[in-house]
């Protein structure tokens, strides 16, 4: 079950019985309900539909309301270019030709903010009691880059006073947006500031930290948790980021999670990340997703850690991969299985061979388990096997392969078993994660026996 209190405990740096999990469902929500990114991000109804579906499938402890870093820029007069499967991009930078005084007044009643308000209102009603809702705001540095374009980088050298002025303005916008999200019921307010991955720690301290701290203080005064998300390789700025006043830091796969953990703990922050978005979640298999979730869970530990993808989930991420992650989050037994398999992923098990089942008189039942002595589903499956063996009047060889041991893992691979526990009849996976009743299994054994005798 999703549990926002568990997430809050992690954000307070307390230990949690399982990792809280926050899939960053942005345009991916559109994919879940079969609509394009522009249709999705412009309609509160669509977003609510998409997030409800994500909630149902992924059982998250937290969900972002809208993952779109162009909302503030749009209100401030940046032209947006829309594409089918991605959030919009900023196509014009009003501060290239004009000054701050030329920008339209910022108003959370304008642009797509009413959409965000409606989404929050709806979601608070049905999922808000169990899942925390995240309001994401564009970080002041990224918003400054939207308004000024690449000139920002040269301004940092040539016109630092202008950069400070714009950052100060953008921090005020961020505070107004934070108030907006909080007033509409967001539990966590996160600054997303990916452009900061492009600058030096000195520039981060000079141009970013004072302004994001102002926003974090504002979020704290509003009674919400604050988080800083930085996508991209911000390794060099990690320490400076950890010294800001946020409650939580979320990072992507380019950054070492153990390094973040160590720095975050030294600075009394909760932290999270950093599942691989493309190679694993988008392009990988369910198994890849499980193993990467385990990597993060084990590297993050059980105190103050929030499991999340590195950044906004790609539109077409296969839901099965995220469901597999949710399984790792909610099922300790599945975590154990995945850990055991991870430990042996480099072994080719050349020494483990299977018998020539057809040549044997007896029917062989290979039962692949975690360990029937310790795992209830495995025990019930083994009991079903023993019961069936007692019932049938044919020779049966029964072998339990416990994947706690190397031999068991080797047999699992050789037999092509993908789920634990599984019963294979003469080498063929027959009951995968489904415990058959004794009668059914006995009939299957007898049928195989007749088949072998050519009857």
């Amino acid at each position, binding site marked *: 079950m999703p549990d926002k209190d568990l997430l809050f405990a992690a954000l307070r740096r307390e230990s949690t019985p399982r990792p809280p999990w926050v899939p960053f469902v*942005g*345009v991916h929500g559109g994919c879940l309900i079969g609509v394009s990114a522009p249709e999705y991000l412009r309609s509160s109804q669509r977003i609510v539909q998409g997030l409800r579906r994500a909630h149902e499938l992924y059982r998250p402890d937290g969900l972002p309301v809208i993952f779109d870093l162009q909302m503030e820029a749009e209100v401030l007069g940046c032209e947006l*270019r829309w*594409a*089918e*499967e*991605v*959030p919009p*991009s*900023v*196509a014009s930078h009003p501060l290239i030709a004009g000054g701050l005084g030329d920008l339209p007044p910022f108003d959370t009643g304008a642009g797509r903010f009413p959409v965000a308000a409606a989404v929050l209102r709806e979601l608070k009603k049905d999922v808000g009691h169990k899942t925390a809702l995240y309001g994401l705001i564009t970080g002041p540095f990224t918003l400054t880059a939207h308004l000024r374009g*690449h000139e920002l*980088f*040269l301004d*940092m*050298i*040539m016109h630092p006073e202008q950069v400070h002025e714009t950052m100060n303005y953008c921090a005020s916008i961020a505070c107004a947006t934070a108030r907006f999200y909080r007033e509409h019921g967001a539990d966590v307010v996160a600054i997303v500031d*990916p452009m900061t*991955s*492009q*600058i*030096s720690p000195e*520039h981060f301290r000079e141009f970013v930290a004072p302004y994001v701290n102002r926003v974090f203080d504002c979020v704290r005064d509003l009674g919400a948790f604050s988080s800083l998300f930085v*996508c*991209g*390789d911000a390794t*060099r700025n990690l320490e400076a980021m950890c010294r800001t006043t946020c409650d939580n830091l979320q990072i*992507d*796969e*380019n950054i070492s999670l153990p390094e973040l953990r160590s720095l975050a703990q030294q600075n009394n922050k909760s932290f999270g990340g950093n599942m691989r*978005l*493309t*190679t694993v979640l*988008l*392009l990988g298999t369910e198994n890849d997703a499980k193993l990467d979730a385990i990597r993060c869970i084990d590297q993050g530990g059980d105190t103050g850690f929030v499991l999340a993808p*590195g*950044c*906004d989930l*790609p*539109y*077409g991420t296969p839901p099965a991969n995220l469901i597999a992650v949710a399984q790792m989050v909610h099922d300790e037994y599945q975590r154990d299985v995945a850990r055991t398999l991870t430990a042996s992923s480099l072994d080719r098990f050349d020494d483990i061979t299977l018998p020539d089942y057809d040549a044997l008189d007896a029917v062989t039942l290979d039962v692949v388990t975690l360990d029937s002595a310790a795992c209830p589903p495995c025990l019930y499956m083994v009991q079903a096997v023993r019961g069936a063996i007692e019932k049938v009047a044919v020779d049966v060889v029964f072998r339990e392969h416990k994947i706690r041991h190397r031999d068991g893992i080797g047999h699992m691979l050789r037999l092509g078993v993908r789920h634990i526990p599984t019963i294979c009849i003469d080498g063929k996976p027959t009951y995968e994660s489904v415990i058959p009743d004794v009668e059914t299994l006995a009939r299957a054994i007898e049928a195989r026996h007749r088949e072998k005798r050519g009857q």
Partner: protein
Amino acid sequence: MSELLAQLAVCIERGKVNKASPYPPDLRGQDGAEELTKQALDSGVAPSDILEQGLIIGMGTIGHKFSRNEVFVPDLLMAAKAMSSAMVQLKPFFESGQARHKGTIVIGTVKGDLHDIGKKLVAMVLEGGGWNVIDLNVDVAPEKFVETLKQHPGAALGMSALLTTTMVNMEETVKRVRQEAPSTKIIIGGAPVTDEFRAKIGADAYSPDPQGALDWLNAQVA
């Protein structure tokens, strides 16, 4: 003369555009890349020597520093600005054939991605490294890449993406290029891109920084 070119290389590396530029503060009031290039040309230095012993050296130094995280985007952009002030004076010599490029690369951000800072930096470093860069800019459709590659036989292709949500569009372009311009060498980059991703989509190379891209391209024509 080599001293003039060495000075030019320093101006490029440090981002000293011209005499009027206040940056970097310790070179204030001194000639910049613009003046030094003009002086070199006026004294009869071959444009190819200015390129090879001035610009390429200067951009190479800052490019390697960027790879080692010793300098950052603002520093590289200043260097590129200085280089542009020299390059604009060398352009006529490239057009007349008196100076030659090492090769041609077609470059752009993938469909759906308007973030061109990384691509722009790469283009500048490659140009400063002696390559002819055909910059298709941002949000480039696979067919546009293919069409341009067909117009420039033998050109390499460079693609970048800043968003995890758009990097997947590289795969489609790689497929199309493999079908329609199969001998093209393809290099990719961008904040979320990794070598693992490169291997998955079948591109030839990945570089986390502009200098790596230049080194790889140079190795292709060595």
